């Protein structure tokens, strides 16, 4: 059984969150003492019938009020700053984080590793490596929550959200869906299995599927007909995917957009919304014809060719 009062701390931010928590706990105990010790004392000392000096005192009320208004404000600022700093750290993933794709659907979590391995309601990870989850939802809002990592992020249909953490201890930790999502919400949970780097490689090799995530994406790129226009060899004029990811794209309305996950997602689903300068709106909308998982695979493929040189610049 786990520790009775506090959960295991198994990520880099878990310790920071716990520090804040203990600081708040200490402050709370102090405040409780500051309020209840005088209160109980007054209640006893000035109970009706007891002998006590009750002559009204002329107290500098305004100064007292200002004191107990201003001091809490400063203390509040301190906690705010602490919380915001750790939060900022939790929200911005390091550049070298290992990327995983997570899809939530009623009522399971589907996970795919960059190497192509797939899992359901289990997440195998190497210890001491930063991991960034890119998450999508097939239906309603879910939330990916790993208490031992002190981390949580809602998974919203219609967009990607991300969450990162770095496990620090080998072990098995529960994860949950923490946003109510329907009948079997409470069953939408699983385990994060943190392994040593060697074990993780072993696990990957053992369960390796025939293709990596990017390779699945490439296959989809062909079967969905994307390559018919977007491939370098295609005769139809469409923007190339090579060297696209994270670069600036000129649009037909004269503005520029960065080709990040959101842009790629939007452009696959509703291409007509943002037309690349120099091209016509010829691509069909894939909204409703493609699953979240497939989207993530396609984007993984586009990411994999980010370093390649485009065949011709528009």
């Amino acid at each position: 059984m786990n520790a009775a009062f506090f959960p295991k701390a198994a990520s880099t931010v878990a310790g920071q969150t716990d520090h804040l928590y203990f600081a708040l706990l200490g402050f709370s105990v102090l405040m409780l003492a500051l309020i209840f010790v005088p209160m109980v004392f007054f209640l006893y000392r000035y109970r009706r019938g007891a002998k006590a000096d009750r002559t009204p005192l002329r107290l500098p009320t305004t100064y007292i009020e200002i004191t107990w208004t201003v001091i809490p404000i400063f203390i509040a600022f301190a906690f705010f700053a602490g919380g915001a700093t750790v939060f900022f750290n939790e929200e911005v993933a390091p550049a070298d984080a290992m990327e995983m794709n997570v899809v939530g659907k009623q009522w399971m979590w589907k996970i795919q590793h960059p190497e192509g391995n797939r899992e359901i309601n289990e997440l195998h990870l190497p210890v001491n490596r930063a991991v960034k989850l890119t998450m999508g939802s097939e239906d309603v809002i879910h939330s990916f929550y790993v208490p031992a990592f002190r981390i949580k992020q809602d998974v919203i249909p219609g967009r990607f959200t991300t969450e990162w953490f770095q496990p620090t201890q080998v072990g098995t930790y529960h994860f949950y869906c923490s946003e109510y999502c329907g009948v079997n919400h409470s069953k939408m949970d699983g385990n994060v299995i943190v392994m040593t780097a060697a074990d993780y490689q072993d696990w990957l090799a053992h369960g390796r599927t025939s293709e990596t995530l990017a390779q699945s994406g490439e296959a989809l790129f062909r079967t969905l007909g994307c390559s018919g226009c977007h491939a370098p060899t295609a005769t139809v004029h469409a923007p190339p995917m090579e060297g696209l990811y994270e670069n600036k794209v000129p649009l037909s309305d004269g503005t520029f957009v960065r080709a990040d996950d959101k842009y790629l997602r939007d452009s696959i689903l509703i291409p007509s919304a943002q037309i690349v300068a120099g091209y016509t709106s010829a691509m069909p909308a894939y909204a409703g014809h493609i699953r979240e998982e497939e989207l993530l695979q396609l984007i993984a493929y586009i990411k994999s060719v980010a370093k390649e040189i485009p065949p011709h610049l528009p």
Partner: protein
Amino acid sequence: MPEQNQIVAQQREAATLGMWAFLATEVLFFGGLFVSYTVYRHFYFADFAAASRHTDVTFGTINSIILLTSSFTMALAVRAAKMASQRLVSRHLLLTIFLGIFFLVIKGFEYHKDIVDHLIPGPHFNAEIPLHGQIFFYLYWIMTGLHGVHIIIGLAIMSILLGLNARRTASLKNSQAIELAGLYWHFVDIVWLYLYPLLYLVGRHA
């Protein structure tokens, strides 16, 4: 009886303030829609522009003029009530009601045209309009629909006042009621004055 007069004065003030407070809730009620409109217009600027070109600016403009005129006749009715002219109150109220009905009739024609043009969001939505234009029209229907409900409520209130006015020999007593109905009616007009540019004008030439 000074005390009695004081109570009457207090009640009058209370009623006016109450109406203003009620209008404040109305602002917040429509506010939710305006916020949604703003958010999505920001998200899907081009689609909103494209969609707004499909609203009928002629109907919209005629209706704006009608409503503005009805605000004027309503103001005249309030003034007539203050002058205690029962005849003028009836005349201006009737005129306002007529203009309100006229507004609804035109809106009805416009809705009919919108339906014929497949401007109802859903599977049969007008194919010329990009996908997110549906959000524009979804808001269009709800905003104009709720506004129409407010117009109907206003017409009902004015009809009741008209009946009361006809039965009373002196219209002095309900002058405040007419004043409050006037406040409400002006508010409904003002909402339209925001809807008109947002739904008909903005993005028309973008």
